[in-house]
């Protein structure tokens, strides 16, 4: 309704109907011109517009030449010439947005630090990358990273996979686990055919012995050979409380194998009075008497 009112006012104020129609014609022609310019520009940049649409538009503009509609274009024409609208859509109109961390710190109930940390740089994945940050925690983080680099950089030397991803990642995890005190490597295969395992062990031994032999021949001093742990001693420790320390107790009798007896008696010596090899500390079974 408001537009209608405006129209009437204009009719009264403005001019005779003929002038008005002239106005309307000129405006529509200029409008077409403008559209033509736009069309050409568009076609120059993109593909040509379909012709059908243009005809329809032209017909519509012809229809608009009727009295009632022409007033409209007359008004719009005047407006177009008199009012210049410039819109600024630059950084100013962008909403203020703090980073999430900053917003959280700023809006928390604690007073914000008067000297907040340097602005955070982000990498592609969105994780923060801290640069020159002299705080204690940052230093600790860098320290840890350096230690890991030193401990794990040899993984990167392999030609097949020079990255930290894939197999190397698992290897690095294994190293870290072992550093933390896990019993064995996660890559150690637990079950395999005995022949297979024997083969592996013998191969290892062979390698080691050739290395040592060659070193000796070349006069290179190697580290001391690692003593082999005794499996048997481990087995003995596992006896329950109150059970005998030697032999096998079954059916009310303690059965001693030859080995047990040998252990108790110890190696034969000519000088008497020496104590047996086994049972030195325990002294359950006394020899000879």
């Amino acid at each position, binding site marked *: 309704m408001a537009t209608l009112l405006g129209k009437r006012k204009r009719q009264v104020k403005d001019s005779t109907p003929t002038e008005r129609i002239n106005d309307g014609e000129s405006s529509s022609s200029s409008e077409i011109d403008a559209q033509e310019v736009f069309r050409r520009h568009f076609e120059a940049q993109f593909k040509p517009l379909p012709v059908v649409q243009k005809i329809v538009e032209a017909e519509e503009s012809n229809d608009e030449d009727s009295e009632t509609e022409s007033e409209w274009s007359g008004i719009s024409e005047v407006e177009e010439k008199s009012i210049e609208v410039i819109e600024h859509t630059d*950084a*100013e*109109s962008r*909403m*203020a*947005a*703090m980073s999430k961390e*900053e*917003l959280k710190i*700023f*809006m928390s*109930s*604690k*007073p*914000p*630090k*008067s*000297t907040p940390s340097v602005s955070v740089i982000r990498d592609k994945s969105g994780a923060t990358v801290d640069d020159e940050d002299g705080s204690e925690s940052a230093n600790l983080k860098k320290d840890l990273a350096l230690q890991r680099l030193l401990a794990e950089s040899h993984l990167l030397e392999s030609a097949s996979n020079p990255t930290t991803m894939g197999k190397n990642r698992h290897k690095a995890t294994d190293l870290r686990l072992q550093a933390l005190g896990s019993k064995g490597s996660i890559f150690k295969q637990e079950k395999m055919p005995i022949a297979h395992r024997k083969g592996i062990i013998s191969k290892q031994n062979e390698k080691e012995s050739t290395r040592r032999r060659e070193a000796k021949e070349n006069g290179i001093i190697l580290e001391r050979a690692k003593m082999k742990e005794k499996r048997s001693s481990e087995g003995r420790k596992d006896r329950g409380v109150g059970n005998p320390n030697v032999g096998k107790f079954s059916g009310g009798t303690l059965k001693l194998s030859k080995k047990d007896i040998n252990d108790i008696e110890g190696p034969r010596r000519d000088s008497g009075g020496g104590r047996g090899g086994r049972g030195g500390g325990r002294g359950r079974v006394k020899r000879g008497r």
Partner: protein
Amino acid sequence: MSTPNIEFLRFTTHKAFTHRLVLSTLTGRPVHISQIRSSSPTNPGLAPHEISFLRLLDSITNGSSFQISYTGTTLTYIPGLITGNVGGASDVVKCVLPETNRRGISWFLLPLCVLAPFSKAPVNVRFEGEGVITSATDTGDISVDTMRTAILPLYEQFGILGAKMELRVLQRSCAGPGGKGGGGVVELRFGAQVRLPKTLHMNRSPGRVKRIRGVAYSTGVSASNNARMIHAARGVLNALVADIHVAAQYDQAPLVSSGDKSNPSGKKRTGVGFGLSLIAESSAAGVIYSADVAAPSEGGVTPEDLGKKAAWQLLECIQQGGCITRIGCGTVLMLMAMGSEDVGRLRLGRDVVGTEDVITLGRDLKKFGGSSWGMRDCEDDETGDIIVSVKGIGVGNVGRKIA
């Protein structure tokens, strides 16, 4: 109760009311304040917020006593020890503000925070009731956001750790109809008690503003007001500083009882409005300028106008110069005067020193036994700032004398 020959320090009028009571509590000197609004025919005597402040003082001190005359125009106050909430049933002291309160919550928080470092136990106070206005007010109080972002960081330079300070806004509220009452809930947790605050040396150049932060809050009105305020403020400030970030905070209006006798459980919404709090941080450590604007309770302002006003106010504050602004200098000067017996220096803008508040504070400090301030012009540059030297009287924390 009191011995007859107590020497009262005598003051008149309600001006600098909280400052005087705080100084009295810290120095242990009893005060006698007379002629409180005695010339007002309609509202003589102490105002509701002043009574609330007395109640608050009573609840965080031990052994203080007040005597208010029949008309309320005369008050005698004998201070006790600042205990905080020691051995209370709950860990917060509740301070209920009446509906007739016209002052923002920062009017209570500013003096309370000056007292809190000298307390024996942590000072945890929860302001609630129908008179808590968290926004800035027409009476010149700052908003709770400015309090947190511009005033509390000042304490850090006195060796009072900011990590143990918290100002929780549990419910926001602007001033209610007629500028009276709100409905907010604010909790101050001040656990950073010190034996003796260090003095301060801020006599260097205040540096240049490097970043502007702020909070736009809308309570019970459309959240788009926030965006409009921020947009307008940035329109002014963007040309001057690149690093501007203003957070937007929208909340529902608080529910308070409708005060309808026939329907006692009836509730109504109150404290509707919006406002903008801006702070400008300088490249020098600890220099923070702030501005605070809120829509008046009767409304009739556009968010755009308000945003522009806030930006201009911030610029004006920066123009005044100095290292501490007008709203912060009361706190800083008092802490310096109460702190260790060193001479601290503070660079203040000429317009800041020239305010009535600062001059009154200086005179009051002298009356309470502090030494007078030394003032000289700053000769480093052409700003015309004034360097104020304040010697501490080493009051410190009585509750922590044996430590």
